[in-house]
């Protein structure tokens, strides 16, 4: 059957702001929003959007569907009525049509030193029990799609806020039994743009397509940060 998809179009060379344009697409039981966008691109090759894996693992295809952040390839037309609206991810600068500037997101990720920090030099693998792995495993499943930033009202107000994914990544390493870098990461998490920027709305975890639960990571980060603060009070 045929459905209407309204797409927020924006060409920086000619438009002052995005405007909706309607297209008709054919839809069956397995048609994803990404499939629909690819159909539209056949009608109008100038439509800009990102995608690659079409299997919800590369994190390229985040868009707003009826105002909610979604992965285009994991959102199906079968779940919407005859008409739906697709626009660029909120809280990022729109560059063209559905393409946003992801640079702030990447800068925040890099800021939390997202790699193992330790000084042992062995050439053998660490031991890590399944229980130790389970402590951080969920937080290691983030695909960097940025949906949680579009869901986060704080990031919308203050783009300097590290945001859910970066804090989750910091937690992922802080909780890893092989890591000794927590002290190097905490200053960033403790800062005004760190964990305390979060007002615990929790929408980030709701929109996460991989059930990473960034809100839980942020909350754990707050506990760790409060601990840091208390320890610092008792230090001379």
């Amino acid at each position, binding site marked *: 059957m045929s459905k209407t998809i309204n797409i927020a179009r924006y060409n920086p060379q000619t438009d002052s702001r995005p405007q909706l344009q309607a297209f008709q697409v054919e839809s069956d039981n397995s048609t994803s929003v990404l499939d629909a966008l690819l159909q539209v691109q056949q009608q109008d090759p100038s439509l800009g959007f990102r995608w690659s894996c079409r299997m919800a693992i590369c994190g390229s295809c985040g868009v707003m569907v009826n105002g909610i952040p979604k992965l285009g390839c994991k959102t199906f037309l079968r779940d919407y009525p005859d008409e739906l609206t697709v626009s660029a991810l909120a809280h990022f600068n729109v560059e063209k049509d559905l393409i946003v500037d992801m640079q702030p997101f990447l800068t925040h990720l890099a800021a939390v030193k997202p790699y193992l920090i330790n000084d042992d030099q062995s050439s053998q693998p660490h*031991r890590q029990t399944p229980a130790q792995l389970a402590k951080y495993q969920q937080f290691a499943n983030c695909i960097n799609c940025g949906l949680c930033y579009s869901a986060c009202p704080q990031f919308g107000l203050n783009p300097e806020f590290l945001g859910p994914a970066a804090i989750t990544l910091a937690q992922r390493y802080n909780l890893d039994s092989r890591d000794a870098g927590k002290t190097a990461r905490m200053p960033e998490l403790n800062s005004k743009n760190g964990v305390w920027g979060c007002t615990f709305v929790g929408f980030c975890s709701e929109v996460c397509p991989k059930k990473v639960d960034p809100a839980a990571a942020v909350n754990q980060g707050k506990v760790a940060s409060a601990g840091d603060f208390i320890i610092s009070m008792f230090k001379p």
Partner: protein
Amino acid sequence: MQQLQQDIIVVGGGGAGLRAAIAAAETSPTLQVALLSKVYPMRSHTVAAEGGAAAVTLEQDSLAAHFQDTVSGSDWLAEQDVVEYFVKHAYQELVQLERWGCPWSRKADGSIQVRRFGGMKTERTWFAADKTGFHILHTLFQTSLKYPTITRFDEYFVIDLLVVEQQIAGVLAICFSTGELVQILGKAVILATGGAGRVFHYNTNGGIVTGDGMALAYRHGVALRDMEFVQYHPTGLPGSGILITEACRGEGGILLNKDGYRYLQDYGLGPETPAGQPKNKYMELGPRDKLSQAFWQQQQRGLTADYHGHAVVYLDLRHLGEAHLASRLPFICELAKSYVNIDPATAPIPIRPAVHYTMGGILTDINCQTSISGLFAVGECASVGLHGANRLGSNSLSELLVFGKVAGEQAAARVQKMSLAPVSAVAAQCQHQQTYISSLFADSCDDTVHAIRTELTLAMEQGCGIYRDNAGLQTCLSTLQALKIRYQQLKVTDNSKAYNSALLQHLELGFGLDVADTICRSALARTESRGAHQRLDEGMTQRNDSDFLKHSLAICQPDGTAAISWQSVTITSLPPAERHYGAKGSGSAGSSV
């Protein structure tokens, strides 16, 4: 045109490119390393690998056994010195990833857990749940952030290599966000651009896997080796081609035809093993080429089922139980639920073969060096000689690491003693490309990238599929020639500067057409059957070592088509023998020596 200078330029931010960039940065902290990628590195298709990475790990395993499995899996077309190097270094590379934080799955005592994989005699595949490639890629990407000398150029699309008198001088790229051409001079260039699966209609690859790097090197005279060998994966989802990992079968999944019969026993892979008790090299754990061929045979006999117009068989996981599926194959459960609306705990998954991997690629020596001095290639875009006529699952992720490191170190060693080519030496080439790009734009055009690409991928599926014959290949070739002529008339109608994906798709299609031509012509020239290349023509259905125990080389002619020549195979210790699987395999030279 913007001009930049770097020491080493890595093209590609997948597993191979990131590993190479880190190796180069570690070799010498004074070298400037540029990492260019047409997508953000973590979007690269390495992210989609599910199953795992191979290395000899258990006591009862041996380097000789991994060597043997790889060589016999390759149908004796692997370079045996390369395989020796590979099996020797794979373990240390997987450990290196562990030391960088990769969340490998563990045994209760905290040591690394290994699993079975098709074509491997014993358990030697490391995995990180069923998201191995994802975790490898993110670990490498995050680790790369530690090195201040690595400068990333995200969303830069390379359109040409700069070559001066058979020496590499740099690359020419389009900056996606601005549309500007950028010239980057460098003393070494490492191509790590991935495979070319998207030139086929049904494939497990992401949209970006379009063979760009292969075509870039080929157009400058570098040979593409063994291009006729294209691996079909036996278990892709119908329609989308999304991969259902082989690990499902390693865990004990079984394949059924429309009558619920385990048909693999009819094709030399039996006797039937009990459901849920997989045995290496038997039945569902036979090699991929044999499994895909068995599907084709079933289809010919009318024993496949229909799923929305696609011929399918079934992968049955129900006997493994919901809890086991949730802990060992969570991603697969998620994919099946999303994309075919099926819960594997309660219903079998419809699947069919889809193109998965390009065994062939840019010819390199064991040091990843190509025939252009200073130009290296590594990963799926390259043919270092590991896979021959058929790749074993889980060898390629390890390959990215082992040879990514080699490429990075070799490039670093080379540039210490080199200086950059003068800008004047590449000026004409850059000007030429600039003019070419400008000439591509027009207000309207009757033809489209989409139309040509669809015809290309269908022609390849028809002519260069699981089984091939002379007539089909000839038809494919003439279709390709006609499409190339249409491509020359094709215009880009979107003339915006920023984020012009129409322009990039246009250029990708051009790369794909060149690569397709090399696949088809190599397949025509190899008038025998070996590994993933199976001919139906009379007298060609068997392996023919006296005439074809050699690599094909596709070399670009002035008219843009490929001429095929041949290169001998390096055989160090394992002379050619028959490839046997199932019961036959247990006593044969191929698998027991």
